[in-house]
């Protein structure tokens, strides 16, 4: 029988088995969340029974929880039964050439300086033989395999590396952690798994771009990165090109684990669709990201530039359990028009001689609201803990808001915790001052913003730093005057 017919047959038989109404689309689950849907997702991913059980357990936990509402953000209530939790990865119809691409999209690529090959891929144009991305990715994979590095989708990892998954998945962010983590644990469909074996320094920066079969980013991504003793990896997430998605809610979970002397550097550049000028239709980015410095002398750094999403709600955090471990958080969060952000970090000091650094830069423009919420917690046994936090806010114009909610909880008298905060405003006066020195308004805004964000740009991986600067410029276009 033909391939197509076989697929139809399988699917219709499955449908019958699961008792769905027969007239649904073949590659999309009906809206709603219940045990059947979860089993359906698990089956689609060919998961072993133990994984299905984990999902169901998380789902039961979720049912007992209430959606949190303490953040300084407003959004219409989400109806969790009106979301479809599974959609087969459909390759978008390929266009034949760049001429068929929306000119506005091309203009954005130009402004962001995105390399030509990437533009083609992002625009959905069939990549031609000259820029053979498949062979590039293949060579990449071979290099990694030689070092014993595993870099694959989380689904592949569940199937091919069950021991590692059983050992580490949920060890940093258990399903019971919070409402969205529970939901994610029940219904996640995609994400990355990275494993760096003992003593290996990953020779290149890992980026989701190079994962073969990288599908359209799922709503509920689950990522797990494990760095064994004496290893190192730098991971880049996201891209500067504006990403649209018909799914409004994105609730991802990212877990990082470092063993003795290991280091993970996790960098994010996020430019999800922020909604139109009236603030409608943007993406909600609710993420739980946490790193566990299990081993002595280990280090986890979070570096991020967030300019998109209608709502950003995330606190990449570090649990500093290992002695002498280090946690770092460098962030630039930009909000414009009607965007809202309630973001920050948590540094939990548990072991001795632990250190953490927090540098957070918030820029608000338009009518947006940007809040920093941070926790520095020093446990009873955390001898000699050190923390330095700097939260700077910049307001562009006078219709936006910037708020800071720093929490400091210290239970050990040997701790040294420093906190600095500044707020500055960029107004017409400053722009005119720079104009009168021969600098035009767009350049003036960029100069001011770049000066403000310098400390964070300096720690971004180089390619990201350049893209991030351009991204900031594009995000703040027209924000003053």
């Amino acid at each position, binding site marked *: 029988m033909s391939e197509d017919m076989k697929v139809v047959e399988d699917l219709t038989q499955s449908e019958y088995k699961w008792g769905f109404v027969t007239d649904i689309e073949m590659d999309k689950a009906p809206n709603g969340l219940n045990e059947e849907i979860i089993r359906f997702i698990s089956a689609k991913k060919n998961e072993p029974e133990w994984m299905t059980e984990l999902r169901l357990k998380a789902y039961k936990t979720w049912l007992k929880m209430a959606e949190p509402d303490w953040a300084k953000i407003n959004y219409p209530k989400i109806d969790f039964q009106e979301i479809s939790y599974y959609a087969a990865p459909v390759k978008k119809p390929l266009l034949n050439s760049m001429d068929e691409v929306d000119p506005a999209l091309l203009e954005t690529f130009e402004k962001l300086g995105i390399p030509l090959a990437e533009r083609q891929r992002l625009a959905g144009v069939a990549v031609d033989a000259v820029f053979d991305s498949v062979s590039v990715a293949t060579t990449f994979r071979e290099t990694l395999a030689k070092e014993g590095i595993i870099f694959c989708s989380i689904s592949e990892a569940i199937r091919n590396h069950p021991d590692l998954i059983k050992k580490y998945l949920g060890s940093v962010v258990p399903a019971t952690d919070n409402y969205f983590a529970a939901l994610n644990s029940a219904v996640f469909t995609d994400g990355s798994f990275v494993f760096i074996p003992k003593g290996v320094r990953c020779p290149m920066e890992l980026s989701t771009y190079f994962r073969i079969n990288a599908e359209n980013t799922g709503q509920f991504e689950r990522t797990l990165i494990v760095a064994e003793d004496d290893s190192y990896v730098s991971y880049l997430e996201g891209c500067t090109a504006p990403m649209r998605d018909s799914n409004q809610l994105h609730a991802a979970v990212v877990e990082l684990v470092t063993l003795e002397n290991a280091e993970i550097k996790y960098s994010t550049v996020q430019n999800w669709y922020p909604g139109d000028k009236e603030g409608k239709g943007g993406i909600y980015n609710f993420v739980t990201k946490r790193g566990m410095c299990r081993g002595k002398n280990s280090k986890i750094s979070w570096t991020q530039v967030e300019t998109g999403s209608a709502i950003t709600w995330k606190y990449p955090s570090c649990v500093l359990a290992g002695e002498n471990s280090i946690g770092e958080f460098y962030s630039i969060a930009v909000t414009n028009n009607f965007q809202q952000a309630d973001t920050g970090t948590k540094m939990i000091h548990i072991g001795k001689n632990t250190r953490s650094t927090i540098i957070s830069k918030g820029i608000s423009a338009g009518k947006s609201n940007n809040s920093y919420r941070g926790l520095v917690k020093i446990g009873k046994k955390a001898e000699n803990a050190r923390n330095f936090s700097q939260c700077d806010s910049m307001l562009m114009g006078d219709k936006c808001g910037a708020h800071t909610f720093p929490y400091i909880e210290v239970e050990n008298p040997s701790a040294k915790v420093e906190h600095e905060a500044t707020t500055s405003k960029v107004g017409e*006066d*400053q722009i005119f001052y720079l*104009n*009168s020195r021969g*600098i*035009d308004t767009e350049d003036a805004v960029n100069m*001011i913003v770049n*000066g403000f964000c310098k400390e964070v740009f300096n720690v971004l991986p180089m390619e990201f730093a350049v893209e991030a600067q351009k991204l900031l410029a594009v995000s703040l276009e027209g924000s003053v005057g």
Partner: protein
Amino acid sequence: MLKIVNLHAEVEGKPILKGINLEINKGEVHAIMGPNGSGKSTLANVLSGNENYQVTEGEIWYEGHNMLDLSPEDRAREGVFLAFQYPVEIPGISNATLLKTAINEIRKHNGMDDISPKDFLAKMREKGQILGMNDSLINRSVNSGFSGGEKKRNEILQLLMLEPKLALLDETDSGLDIDALKIVSTGVNSFRSSENAVLLVTHYQRLLNYIVPDFVHVLSNGKILKSGGKELALKLEDQGYDWINKAELETESV
């Protein structure tokens, strides 16, 4: 170099300048004096292109250009410089970055290459010395944490670094003690040449002892009531502004 014809300007709908006529040639220093509210600062701001001030009538010609057609940044690139009465702070941008960017914008406009880092540093040191400002300010944020006097000196440092053709100094002397006044004046005098011109807006005659003007104009109620040489300033110091107003009233009633 600069020709102002029948200039009328207002702020937030309120007329301030009511018909200014003024000509400034290369090599000249013109002082504008007048009581509070006369429009002195307005004149300086209108010339530099501040959007808060609207020109309602009249023309301004600068080096053959219709100045009203030029944006503030273009005026700066054409060699117009305003030393602000109240310089703003710009945290995050160092003095060095500001100056280097400004210098290069002007050079680019004139078809020149960027200034080399070595030349830039040497120039900063040279001009900084004239004004008694040391190396540490190179990397400090523009005017951040500067005292009033330091801000004014920083404006003059920028003047010396940018080497404009027309310098508009808006009450540069206000808030300065005698020593600072002398230093700033030395700076301005080192700038003066036969190729550039200075428009000096000031309240008190004292500054004019150090920066000796070629022409003095008295601005009152939006108009230039009297023009003269440097002796006019001394007379004002002596007698105040009233006698000029009275003379004007007398002329009007004739």
